[in-house]
Structure formats: C-alpha cells, structure tokens
C-alpha cells in the first residue's frame, strides 16, 4: 500500500512560493490596515502602556517584553501618522509576516501550495489573531517569533534527515529565535521541552557533538541577554505593583518574570477544570469553526501516522500551552491561546492536504485522470473560499477598529481645556498610560501636574492651591493604579466638564468612562428657578421638558468639542438616559444632572418644578466626515435603542482638522 506523503517535494527555492507567501502577506496586511486602530484605545488592557513604553524605551509591565519594546521603538520612528498609530502598525506588519511564515511552514509540511496559502489566510483572518494585529499588543509580534522558531526547526530537521550535515546552523538559528521570542512572550519557554524532544528524535546522536550543544546553549543565552534590559530600566516604573517586584535584585527579577502574576496561574480547582476546557473549546470554535475542529483532529491523526516526530513537536507545544492557560485566570484569556490556535491551524492544513491526497489517489485508482483537477475545482475550492469568506464576514466587523478615536479625541480636548498650572488626576500605573502618553510621548502641557506619573498613588500634599481636574471619581477607583484616597475625596463634588464618546459601538473593548471632572468643595449650580436659554424649545420627552438650550458655536472642527447647555424641567420620573448625537453619530449618554442630581436634591435643593441645568462640552469624533449635522438630544433606554425619543436642536457644521 502506498501512503501519500505530503512532503516529498523540497522547499524553499521556488519563486512561486515566494510569490504566494507574498500574497498571504499582502492580503493579511490589507485587512489589518483597513481595520487598524488609529491611535490610543482601550481594546487591550496594556495597549496604551506598550505604546508609551516603546516610544520612550521604558520598561513594560511583567514580564518586561524587551524585544517587543525595541521593535516598537523602531516602528515609532516611522514618518507615518501618530506615534500610537505606528506602534499599532507594528502589530499589523509583523502579524502579516507571521501569516507569510505560516505559508512556508505548511509548504514544508505538505506539498500543497493551495493548502499552504489557505491555511495562512485562514489563520490570519481568524478572530483572536486578527484582533491582536490591529492594536498595540505583543501577541501578533510574538507569533512572528514563534513561527520563525518553528520554521527554523523544521528546516533544520528536513535537511538533517536528508543527510545535510552542514545544516546545523539552522538549529542554532532556531534556538536563537526561541531565546529572542521570550522577549515577546515568556510563555514561549513552555515550548522548550517539545523542541528538545524534537531535536532528539531528529538527531539522536547529538550528544556526541558537545560543540553543537554548547553553541545551542550560547544561542539561547544570547537570545535571553535582552533581559538585562529589566534592571537597567527598573527606575522608570510607575506602577506600584510592578515596583514592589522591581527587577533590581535576583528575587525581584524572578518575581518580575517567571514568578509574575502568581494569583493568575493554576487558579482553578479540579472540579472547575472541565468548564475551563469547555471554555477553551468554545474559543477554539470561534477561531476555526466546528468543521475546523474536526479537520484538525483528523490532521493530528494523519500527522501521528505519517510524521511522528512532527506530531510530538506540535502536540508537545500545543499541550503545554493549553494545559497552562486553561488554568490561567485572566479576563482577556482568548489572546493567550493564539499560539495554541496557530498550532491547531497547522494540523487543520495538514489534515486538508492529506484529504486532498486521498482524493487524488482514489481518482487515480479509478482511472479517471480527468477527475482530480475537476474534483478539486468543484469541491475543494468553493469549500475553502467559503471558509475564508466565513472568517472575513464573521470577524471583520468585530475587529474593525478603524473608527476608534474616542481616547485620543477625549484627551486632546482635556489637555486643551486645562488651565495653566492645573492638576490632572487619573488612574495610575499600567492603566494610566492613555493620560501619560501626552506628556511622555508628545511632550504636551508640561505645566499640567499629573501626580501618578511621578509617584504611584500621588502625593496629596503637593496639590495645595492648584485647580484640580480628574478623569476618575474617588468612589469609583478600582483595581491597580489607585490614587491616594485623600487626593480624590469621596465627599467632594465631581463636576463634569467634558464628556467623551460613549455608548456607541466599541467592539466589546475595555473603554472606561471618558469624563473630565472639576473637583470642587462647592456644589454646581445644577437647579435653578427659571430657564433663560438662548434657544427656547419647550419639547416634552417622557417625564422631562427640554425648555431650551445654549450652543456656544454652530461650527466645530472634527475632534474638537461643542459647548452645550441644556435646560430641563422635571415633570415626572424620566425613564432612561439622556443622549446626544450629531446626525447618526452617537456622542455620549448620561443621567439627568450628569450624575450629581440625586445628591444635589438631597443636600442642596430638590428640583421640584424647577429647572435642571446641564452645562458641559461634548467631544466631536475626529473621524466624522466634514458636513452639516443636526445636533440631537434624546431620551434612550440604558441598554437598548428600541425606545428612543429624540429632539433635534440646531445644525452644526463639522469641518476637517484644518478647518
């Protein structure tokens, strides 16, 4: 019986392969660029920190990510867009390169160019990987390093098995890449046993080559030398949690790297594990589909049968990763499985190649030699194109962050609004880098004092006399990076001045409230006896009457802000939240009185029959096309848009950035 062997044809050496790898690269990059986040965002908990750390060559949170930092610095120097955009761009460029290398990997494992191209694109357009290729995060870059390492090992194995004794430089290259990849994600260390076993299976007599073993150890050590960056840059840390484990001592170094986040590791008891495995299976399904899971299982079986060494390599890598991260307690778990998904995509491609080989052999035995191309064309191609189309249709909308300008629009207005010499408070540590970006990277407003930038938690005594503004409320401080509670007293009045975009589609990100408050001991003049709006209206909106409004200007630059005052008479109990929009573009949502009315009614005066005055500035998204838009105010249900009641105010002309 003749077994189909998908790898008999060598690789590389074909211009066609280079062209197809280039096609995988260009196609992936095209999708990534079309959906790339334009700047700062809250799509990842660490993205804004990584942008600033790359641009300033600082030290990222545990486990440090030195190689990522250096690569990010190179990208931050590109003469394209903003610094934040450039670091986002790195994920797109290097993520697409990972897809191109996957083409090479599949070409090496199978003889099918079509399958290799399909697998590369199927992976590139999968949900989790795509999501990381459009923001500043380590995962896309990490996959380039993982793919480089794996490809080098496979190339070495192929040449060594073919008797090429001069190919050991490829082994050293693979091990160097492995060492370097620890600087994009430390979990790559988990692959070491699988690589070690693979080397022994391919070249059992390696123990007779002490020079090669020494060279391998040196290559790995050379890759790890990047971690000297940690003690060198430890002084730059601003996060209290990270400073507690400052990598300036051996103990601190261990805690910052291998010993980081102990509370997240192996965080589930045995009875909880089955549900975690189901969660993993669900995440796998989201990325490869049910058909992909089945085809992958078949691929594992074929790989075991035909390429046992490769089976143990890929299965070893896969098991270690899944075993570790199934028990990892973190809310953005899906991205940690990307390397495991990558391995699963490889076996999907392998299973597909074997299926096609079986099909060809069957049609060959049937002496219908005209069938193979016809069958492939009729059956395989539409199926494969359908699978790719399904990835695109299912994942494009979810991963399209090209219009996510909320964070930068908000902070640009914040720094424009703050008076000279003021204090700006906000979350500190890793999650405060949306704010730190402006002074650290753009060198904007050095006169504004940002306490958590200099000291985690801040120093309350340094705030004396200065006007204080904040983007968080004392009672709402959560998690790491909290300020000293004396800086954000809970009994102070938090008077909203500027409201950033909220309530719109964000792709399920981690966006926090984008509100600039002025801290005051005195309450705002929220309730007044009568309304004197510049534009009287008298429109009822389910429990409220909009008596009128003031609009400071009818022309605004995209990315600028509109100063709006609304005069509400309370007739009953309003159901829902107040919202504003420019045309169809939602701007923000808030409760009547901008969060202060309940306390105001209790402590100052109730609004019974009087006028509630809301006075604030609205951020206009910078990606709004220039044109005239009706400014609309509505009463909407907090979580749905079915019951909406809108009233149109005046027209506002939005101009381009240049006016």
């Amino acid at each position, binding site marked *: 019986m003749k077994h189909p062997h998908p790898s008999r044809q060598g690789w590389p050496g074909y211009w066609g392969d280079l062209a197809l790898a280039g096609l995988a690269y260009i196609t992936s990059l095209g999708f990534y660029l079309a959906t790339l986040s334009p700047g700062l965002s809250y799509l990842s908990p660490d993205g804004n920190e990584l942008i600033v750390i790359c641009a300033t060559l600082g030290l990222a949170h545990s486990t440090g990510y030195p190689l990522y930092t250096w690569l990010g610095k190179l990208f931050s120097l590109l003469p394209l867009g903003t610094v934040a955009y450039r670091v986002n761009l790195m994920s797109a460029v290097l993520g697409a390169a990972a897809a191109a290398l996957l083409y090479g990997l599949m070409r090496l494992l199978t003889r099918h160019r079509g399958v290799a191209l399909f697998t590369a694109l199927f992976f590139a357009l999968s949900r989790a990987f795509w999501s990381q290729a459009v923001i500043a995060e380590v995962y896309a870059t990490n996959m380039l390093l993982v793919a480089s390492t794996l490809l080098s090992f496979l190339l070495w194995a192929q040449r060594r098995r073919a008797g090429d004794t001069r190919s050991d430089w490829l082994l050293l290259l693979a091990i160097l890449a492995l060492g370097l990849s620890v600087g994009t994600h430390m979990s790559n260390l988990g692959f070491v046993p699988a690589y070690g076993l693979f080397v022994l299976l391919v070249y059992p007599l390696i123990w007779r080559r002490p020079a090669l073993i020494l060279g391998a150890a040196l290559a790995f050590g050379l890759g790890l030398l990047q971690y000297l960056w940690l003690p060198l840059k430890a002084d730059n840390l601003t996060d209290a949690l990270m400073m507690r484990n400052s990598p300036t001592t051996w103990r601190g170094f261990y805690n910052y790297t291998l010993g980081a986040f102990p509370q997240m590791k192996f965080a589930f008891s045995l009875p909880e594990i089955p*549900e975690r495995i189901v969660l993993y299976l*669900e995440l796998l399904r989201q990325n490869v589909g049910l058909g992909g899971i089945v085809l992958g299982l078949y691929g594992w079986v074929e790989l075991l049968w035909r390429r046992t060494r490769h089976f143990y390599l890929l299965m070893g890598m896969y098991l270690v990763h899944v075993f570790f991260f199934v028990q990892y307690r973190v*809310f953005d778990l899906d991205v940690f499985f990307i390397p495991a998904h990558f391995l699963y995509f490889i076996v999907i491609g392998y299973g597909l190649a074997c299926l096609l080989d079986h099909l060809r052999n069957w049609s060959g035995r049937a002496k219908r030699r005209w069938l193979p191309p016809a069958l492939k064309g009729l059956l395989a191609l539409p199926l494969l194109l359908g699978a790719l189309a399904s990835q695109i249709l299912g994942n494009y909308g979810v991963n399209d962050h090209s219009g996510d300008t909320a964070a930068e629009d908000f902070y640009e207005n914040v720094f424009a609004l703050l008076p000279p010499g003021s204090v700006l408070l906000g979350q500190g540590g890793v999650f405060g880098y949306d704010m730190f970006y402006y002074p650290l990277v753009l060198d904007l407003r050095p006169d504004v004092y940002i306490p958590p930038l200099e000291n985690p938690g801040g120093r309350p005594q340094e705030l004396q006399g200065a006007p204080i503004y904040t983007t968080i409320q004392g009672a709402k401080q959560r998690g790491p990076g909290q300020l000293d509670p004396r800086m954000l007293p*809970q009994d102070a009045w938090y008077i909203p001045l500027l409201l950033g975009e909220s309530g719109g589609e964000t792709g399920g990100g981690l966006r926090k409230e984008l509100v600039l408050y002025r801290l005051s001991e005195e309450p705002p003049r929220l309730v007044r006896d009568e309304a004197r709006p510049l534009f009287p209206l008298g429109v009822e909106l389910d429990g409220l009457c909009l008596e009128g409004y003031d609009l400071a200007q009818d022309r605004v630059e995209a990315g600028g802000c509109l100063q709006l005052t609304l005069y509400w008479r309370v007739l009953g*109990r309003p159901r829902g939240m107040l919202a504003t929009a420019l045309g169809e573009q939602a701007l923000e949502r808030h409760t009547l009185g901008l*969060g202060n009315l309940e306390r105001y*009614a209790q402590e100052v005066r*109730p609004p019974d029959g009087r006028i509630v005055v809301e006075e604030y500035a609205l951020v206009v998204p910078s990606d709004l096309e220039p044109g005239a838009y009706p400014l609309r105010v509505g009463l909407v249900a907090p979580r749905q848009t079915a019951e909406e009641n809108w009233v149109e105010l005046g027209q506002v002309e939005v101009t381009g950035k240049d006016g």
Partner: protein
Amino acid sequence: MTEREAGIGQIESAWRGRRWWVLGGGILLGLLVLAAVFSLGVYVGRRGWDAGAPSIARPGPAQPPLNPPQPIDQGWPQQQQPVLMGPLHSQNRQGLTVRTSDGLRFVRVTEETRFFRMEEGTEVEIDRQGLRPGDGVAVFGRPSPDGLSLLVERVVLLPPKQ
C-alpha cells in the same frame, strides 16, 4: 524483489522503529478527546442542554458614563431589595449619608423611618442612636414621585463582617 515489495519492506522497517511512538501518540490523542468529551458532559450535566456556550468574564462592553445605581441583591426577598447598601459615612438630623460603590448617597429619614439590627437572621428594632459611622447599613425605601429623592422606610444595621 519487486519495487512494490521493496516499498512495503521499507514501510514495515520504518514502522517497527516508531510503532511505540505512534501507539503513545494514539493514546495521547484518545485521552485528549476523552478529556474534551468528559468536560462537555460535565458542562451539560451541570448547566443543562439549554446552557449557552461559556464566555470569558470580561469587564463588559462600554458603559455609559454617569450611569444610575443598580438594584442590590444581597439575599433579601425579591420584593424587599435594599435601595442602598454600604458603610454609614455620617448622619445628621435630616438623614444619613451612606458610602456606596457609586459614591456618597444621602437619604432623608422621617418620623416614619424605623431602624433595625440583624440578629441571627431576624431584624430587631433599635433606636437610631445605635448607628455609628462605619457601620454597614441597608436602606429600604422607595423613590419619591419625582424619582429624585428617596423616601426611607427602614434602615437595617448589618452584622460586622467576619
């Protein structure tokens, strides 16, 4: 020896060398499938066939800023949920200020407002002077007709946390 026989011989020779590896891999794959099927069975057994796919507990989608307080569920019957709960910040003649997750909340007390202490699962009426700053309290009441103030019916002093 024909070419076909030579091919078979090569395959058999290669197979003898790696059959234990293949066998081990097969067992590994079988165990993996078994673990997946067992986990799915446990999941369905615990949650039923109607349960949706599990999801990661993310911090959630974009929250509208300045959102209103949500009802609190701390084990009281559905019809008797407290409208506010938290440590007592301060009190004066007009009412109490309670520190909640949404900030300080002032509630106005009237002559009709009654005060209780939780004692072994039951509520025992106490005097208002029994309240001290820092005590955990649950406030029961209903919004005023305009929806902007709270008419307090009873305040329950919670047992100290262990």
